[in-house]
């Protein structure tokens, strides 16, 4: 039973008049539970637009505080909020934008001990993490619990998006079975990033979340979308499920969560 207030009908009118969304679709969004890993580059625009869309339950995990150097891309925060916890800052922005959204904050660092409890309350996990240990941890936990990850990553002028839906497509380990050794691939802030790229990729993640919630279109499962900003090109590569995948393959060898050592920021 759809029971919108007059204010909600007006707020979501541009959604409701879309036949693919309608009142029922909007209701699904208001009931949806989405967890954001990080309120940083990708998490900022993602949280902002998810809130605008009327995603009713948003969880945000981040233990960091707003820094001046974040504001070139992390638009959910503001100059006034430098030093504030990112989760708190994000919540303020979201509540100013849309009071329909219930925001739950987790000022924690993800590890093998807390992850299962954290993801339990949510259906979709928006991965905007900036390090491999978190990326593998969330992948394995979501394979084990059947939760869908909407994955994004950015580097300099390039970004990638995909959806990992256990059972329906590959997982991150089907692509890359184990994390690279320290120093072999760039991570964290090395090399910089064109700020707006975070907006492009974070919002492509949101598009996928909304499609999954609404059950419309063709979600980016089994496809890797690559955006090359310098050449203004989008490419889509096929991602396949690996039968030998150590976590979602036919005879998995990883049955427990692994805490990989975080090497980001260590001197080399």
């Amino acid at each position, binding site marked *: 039973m759809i029971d919108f207030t007059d204010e909600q009908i007006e707020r979501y009118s541009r959604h409701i008049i879309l036949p693919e969304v309608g009142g029922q679709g909007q209701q699904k969004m208001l009931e949806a539970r989405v967890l954001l890993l990080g309120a940083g580059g990708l998490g900022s625009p993602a949280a902002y637009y998810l809130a605008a869309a009327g995603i009713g339950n948003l969880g945000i995990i981040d233990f960091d505080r707003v820094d001046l150097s974040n504001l070139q891309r992390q638009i959910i925060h503001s100059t006034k909020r430098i030093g504030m916890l990112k989760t708190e800052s994000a919540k303020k922005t979201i509540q100013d934008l849309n009071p329909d959204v219930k925001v739950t904050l987790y000022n924690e660092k993800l590890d093998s001990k807390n992850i299962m409890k954290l993801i339990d309350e949510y259906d979709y996990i928006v991965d905007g993490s900036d390090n491999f240990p978190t990326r593998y941890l969330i992948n394995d936990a979501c394979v084990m619990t059947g939760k869908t990850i909407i994955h994004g990553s950015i580097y300099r002028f390039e970004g990638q998006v995909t959806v990992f839906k256990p059972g329906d497509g590959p997982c991150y380990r089907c692509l890359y079975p184990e994390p690279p050794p320290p120093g*072999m691939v*760039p991570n964290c802030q090395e090399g910089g990033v064109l700020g707006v790229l975070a907006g492009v990729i974070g919002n492509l993640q949101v598009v996928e979340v909304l499609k999954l919630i609404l059950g419309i279109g063709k979600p980016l499962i089994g496809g890797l979308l690559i955006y090359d900003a310098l050449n203004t090109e989008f490419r889509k*590569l096929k991602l396949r499920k690996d039968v030998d995948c150590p976590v979602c393959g036919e005879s998995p060898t990883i049955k427990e969560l692994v805490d990989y050592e975080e090497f980001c920021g260590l001197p080399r």
Partner: protein
Amino acid sequence: MAVKVRIPTPLMKLTDNQAEVTAEGSTISEILNHLESQFNGIKERICEENGSPRRFINVYLNEEDIRFLDGERTAVKDGDEISIIPAIAGGTGAR
């Protein structure tokens, strides 16, 4: 056989900042060797000593991962496009 090879941003240091280069060969393995002859050091970044791509780097022929074709022995033809896709972790840029 000349094919286009897309170089990922982290390896562009080795290709004089070119995102797209041309290489010749009739298999992925030959293409990688020709790449190495033009850009010293690049093969080592992409492949293990045995010549297969490192586990955190995938090589695509057009839109297909070569692991699901014939690996490094996958045949290539004129006009094909090869992409080298390493794992990247940049996301929140939190710190």
